């Protein structure tokens, strides 16, 4: 009987495709909007994710998120290094600075200064050159989006609004009246602020920055293997009175800031809710109508000896098949969107949670509509088959 139930579903092509499209569209909206939301949120902590070496990030206690640079006194680095259990601690500079480009225009850039000696904090993936170029004088590394985007240069200097070319290794920028030679190109995760990122050494970054007593943005700490990270975290916080976060905590703190301080979650939440409602309204309603259309056949089966649980099983099977196909189509379409649109055009990150959430929504839609349908089937009086 299972194959008959499935053929009944496939055979009513108008309703079947309607159910499928409804579920697929709902899945697409839910999964795609969730993926973009996660993609956007993951951009907010891209620096943390691309700096895997430290166990702990030490920052000013008033700092709210990773881009909220609240510089500390440079002595903070020594205070952190003096805490027992610290294997190493390195400085990081991070701030927005204005760069003068080769054609004379100016562009706000996110300047990241990494430890001069270890280069911890430098971009992990280089597409041209290596991070070692930072050891050369006045050298910086830019990333690919900046290279072909906001740092790109006009082909014809007389026509600044005309076609543009990528800025290349060897070309010169100016940061705070100081020369900065592009020594390499990195591939990095796009950042939330969508400004080009420039990597250089900590000491050079300080020279680019306006003169100030506080130049230390963050301290990256590696715990001695003999000391539990949580214990070291408590020690550093206690002895330095600075805030100390694990990478995960720092990332979540950043996400929470953007979630609470912006309308992003509400906007995406509305889109996801709409997707869910579309699924309920279209697919749920169509599945219910499909069952109603087949009620006389279910009634005939009941007359011929089908028990109510047996019929409910057939309806559940139909719902399950429609749900699985609709979910698959929706997730497939979502993946195509994610794979075909370049990351610098669309923040898209489908974590393993998203298909599960989409599946949960589809299961809810299918179960709810099946439950209504099943109620009609369960209440079906087999004697109704004689009533035409």
């Amino acid at each position: 009987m299972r194959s008959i139930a499935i053929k009944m579903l496939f055979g009513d092509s108008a309703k079947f495709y309607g159910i499928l499209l409804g579920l697929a569209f709902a899945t697409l909206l839910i999964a795609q909007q969730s993926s973009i939301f996660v993609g956007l949120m993951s951009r907010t902590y891209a620096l943390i994710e691309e700096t895997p070496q430290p166990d702990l990030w030490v920052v000013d206690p008033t700092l709210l998120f990773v881009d909220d640079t609240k510089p500390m006194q440079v002595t903070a680095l020594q205070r952190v290094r003096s805490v027992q259990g610290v294997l190493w601690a390195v400085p990081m500079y991070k701030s927005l600075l204005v760069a003068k480009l080769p054609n004379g225009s100016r562009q706000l850039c996110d300047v990241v200064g990494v430890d001069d000696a270890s280069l911890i904090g430098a971009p992990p993936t280089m597409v041209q050159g290596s991070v070692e170029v930072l050891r050369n004088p006045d050298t910086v590394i830019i990333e690919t989006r900046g290279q072909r985007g906001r740092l790109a240069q006009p082909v014809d200097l007389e026509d600044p609004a005309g076609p543009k070319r990528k800025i290349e290794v060897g070309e010169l920028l100016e940061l705070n009246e100081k020369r900065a030679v592009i020594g390499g190109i990195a591939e990095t995760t796009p950042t939330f602020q969508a400004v080009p990122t420039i990597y250089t050494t900590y000491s050079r970054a300080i020279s680019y920055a306006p003169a100030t007593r506080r130049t230390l943005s963050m301290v990256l700490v590696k715990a001695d293997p003999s000391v539990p990270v949580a214990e070291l975290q408590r020690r550093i916080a206690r002895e330095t009175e600075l805030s100390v976060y694990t990478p995960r905590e720092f990332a979540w703190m950043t996400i929470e800031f953007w979630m609470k301080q912006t309308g992003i979650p509400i906007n995406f939440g509305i889109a996801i809710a709409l997707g869910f409602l579309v699924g309920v309204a279209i697919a749920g309603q169509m599945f219910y109508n499909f069952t109603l259309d087949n009620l006389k056949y279910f009634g005939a089966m009941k007359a011929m000896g089908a028990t109510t649980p047996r019929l409910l099983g057939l309806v559940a099977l139909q719902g399950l098949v429609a749900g699985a196909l609709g979910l698959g189509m929706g997730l497939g379409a979502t993946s195509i969107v994610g794979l075909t649109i370049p990351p610098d055009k669309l923040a898209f990150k489908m974590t393993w949670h998203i298909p599960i959430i989409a599946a949960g929504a589809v299961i809810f839609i299918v179960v709810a509509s099946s439950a209504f349908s099943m109620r009609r089937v369960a209440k079906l009086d087999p004697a109704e088959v004689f009533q035409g």
Partner: protein
Amino acid sequence: MSEHRTAIRCARITKTFGSGEAVVHALRGIDLEVRRGEMMALVGPSGCGKTSLISIMAGLLQRDEGELEVMGTDPGALSGHERTKWRGANVGFIFQQFNLIPQVSILENAAVPLLLRNVPRREAHERAAALLREVGLAGRENSRPTKLSGGQQQRVAIARALVNEPRILVCDEPTSALDGATGQKVMHLIRDITRRDDRVVILVTHDERIYHFADRIAHLDDGRVTHVSTPAEALAESAARMGEAAAARG
């Protein structure tokens, strides 16, 4: 001897629907016996209780009062689940609108009662194919019902009704959706197949052209069996009524 030949015995059966001022007395005390191997037609005006009576006989509906014995069993005394199983094993149905599932082949349609009893698919299809051959649909097994004429669809319904080898066949207006000639062919088929196996056929009809296929005709009116006649007597009564009506019109 006649006791042994009784297949269905109804005594003082009543059935009402609704309550209060909306109550409808569908059956007001039905007494009727149907013998083994007999084709009994139930006739009467719309609303006289024919459908309620066959529904009760087939175990689809519970009576309010009275006694019922169908092949030695009172379906009303069975639990809902047992009654469903009993129906699946003992009763075949032929519906007015055929009720064939349009999305599957006629072979699968004919096999449904067996599949519902968990008969292996292959065996169910073999038995359904054999019956389709018997009703003259050999070679059409993979056709969809919608590709067949009304008469052919009713033949599929007959095959489906008989595939389980039921002892009782309940036919609800089996010719009402068919033209006269096709209706006659279908009734021939039903009579030939069922008589051979000593089955009981309960036939609800308004179609006087098929009265002669029945062995006896029970006339119902206002929830009661007014009398039981032979087909010839029923046709004569009908002719007389029509004559009276024509005379009254002048």
